[in-house]
């Protein structure tokens, strides 16, 4: 295995992707929405009308939600007023699955550009004539999609910590975020989801040789995150450290299976067949 080949391919793909507006536009807009606009909108509406949010805990629907809440979450809002509890629940728990859209979307958009886009533009043939092995080509493209997806997710997490704590400080009176449930989500589930997005894109792009086609199909993986969000809202699945670790483990297992299949799919003869 020649890591120089892998990193060279990854660097080239990242450079190419950064020159494609269809790739970087959603990568700017989505984090802005989840890190800046949504939390700030929520925090400032709470600051503008504290009375409305203060009565949150006495709302009958909310009371039902709170009664089903695990002890870890209940403990985190114990002693807080209604506004503070609402912010902790919304920004600390309910927003968490939203955040997972970032690694999933980044990895699928770059992987679509890297795998399907290269075939669409027929540049893949010149690449296949290089001395790099099939595995090196595959890993180069995995790194090209996975590294920025995970790095940007972590940077977004840092930015979210700053935004949430700074904007909510007048209401909370302390630095309260991040809460422990986020750590497995960011450092365990997010990389697993990125790899899931990449492996799925490789398999999808084997049948869908255009960038947009592969991206649109693989973007349907976002339904996993939506399911997680519904689970949180309905109280079926509350994100906690334990749940996060277990969920991540399941995802890594699925990743391992998909990567094995994707590596088998990724060979020169098959790639050329789809170019012709």
């Amino acid at each position, binding site marked *: 295995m020649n890591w120089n080949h892998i990193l060279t391919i990854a660097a*080239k793909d990242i450079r190419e992707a950064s*020159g494609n507006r269809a790739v970087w536009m959603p990568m700017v807009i989505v984090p802005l929405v989840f890190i800046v606009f949504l939390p700030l909108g929520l925090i400032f509406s709470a600051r503008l009308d504290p009375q409305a949010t203060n009565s949150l805990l006495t709302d009958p629907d909310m009371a039902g939600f709170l009664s089903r809440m695990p002890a870890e979450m209940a403990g985190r809002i114990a002693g807080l007023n209604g506004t503070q509890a609402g912010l902790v629940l919304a920004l600390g728990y309910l927003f968490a699955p939203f955040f997972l859209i970032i690694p999933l979307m980044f990895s699928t958009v770059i992987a679509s550009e890297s795998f399907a886009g290269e075939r669409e533009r027929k540049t893949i043939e*010149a690449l*296949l004539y*290089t001395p790099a092995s099939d595995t090196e080509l595959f890993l180069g493209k995995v790194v090209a999609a996975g590294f920025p997806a995970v790095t940007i997710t972590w940077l977004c997490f840092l930015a979210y910590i700053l935004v949430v704590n700074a904007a909510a400080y007048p209401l909370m009176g302390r630095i309260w975020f991040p809460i422990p449930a986020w750590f497995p989500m960011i450092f365990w589930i997010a990389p697993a989801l990125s790899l899931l997005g990449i492996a799925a894109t490789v398999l999808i792009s084997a049948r869908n040789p255009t960038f947009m086609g592969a991206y649109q199909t693989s973007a349907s993986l976002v339904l996993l995150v939506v399911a997680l969000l519904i689970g949180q809202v309905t109280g079926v699945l509350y994100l906690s450290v334990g749940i996060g670790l277990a969920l991540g483990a399941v995802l890594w297992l699925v990743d391992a299976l998909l990567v094995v299949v994707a590596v088998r799919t990724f060979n*020169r003869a098959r790639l050329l067949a789809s170019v012709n």
Partner: protein
Amino acid sequence: MPPTITVQHLVHAFGERRAVDDLSFEVGRGEVFGLLGPNGAGKTTTVRLLNGLYHPTAGAISILGLDPAAHGQEVRARTGVLTETPALYERLTAWQNLEFFGRLADMRPADLKRRIAELLAFFGLEERAHDKAGTYSKGMKQRLALARALLTRPEVVFLDEPTSGLDPESALQVRELIDSIRRRDGHTVFLCTHQLTEAERLCDRVAILNSGRLLALGTLEELGRRLSPGLWVEAAFLQPLSPQPDLSRLPGVLSAAFDGARVRFQVEGESAIPGVVTALVQSGAQLTRLQPEQISLEEVYFTLQEQSRQGAQ
């Protein structure tokens, strides 16, 4: 010296269809070898097989002493390929394109830098070296792709339709570049084309394919002799002859036909020509020109393709 490329009874099938069917040939070191045939004849598939991108269904290949199916990486490290489309990264500059492929070939940074500068200068692209390849004209892209194929100083260069889609001026320029590459660096060149004038001008030997099968192989002279045995010569005089001598009765003459102040005759070999000239002079001919005719590659090609079509029916 062993041949650079040896192909024996090569077969490659996509499902039921044989893209390459019992193909055999050899290419010597420093030779410019042409693979001719219409679209779908199996030219590109052969290049891919020779570089280990496909594994043969049957038959054997040796290139630079290696089996590309088993040692594809080693083979590709010693070959350079100009693909049918330039296949350049259009969002990268010319320099970045070459740098990328040089790194994948494990070239040392200092050598790579020198080589890129040398090739960009050779192909007249140095002033646009840091412009994105997407802004290049078709001819410039083709020259850049050619530079990429030569980047690693490959022992064998594969050129797949190098002038395809180019305007006549750019095509001529690319042909001259190919010619100079061979003269300057002594590369073995494997040229796939359906441009017959290109093959005629550049190739030492050609193989003509149809539907993956080899129709003929040899130098243009050999192929011409195979289609039309003997040597054709045209003689011109100041005035038409009257009476015309019966040249076909002379020893070694196969046929002859007068046309005004010219005669076109076919002889078994060069040794029969002096007898014909003597007979013409004795008949009062004042010779102004005596020119052996070489059958064109175009004639050979279309005759063979037609024979192949008729054979298939």
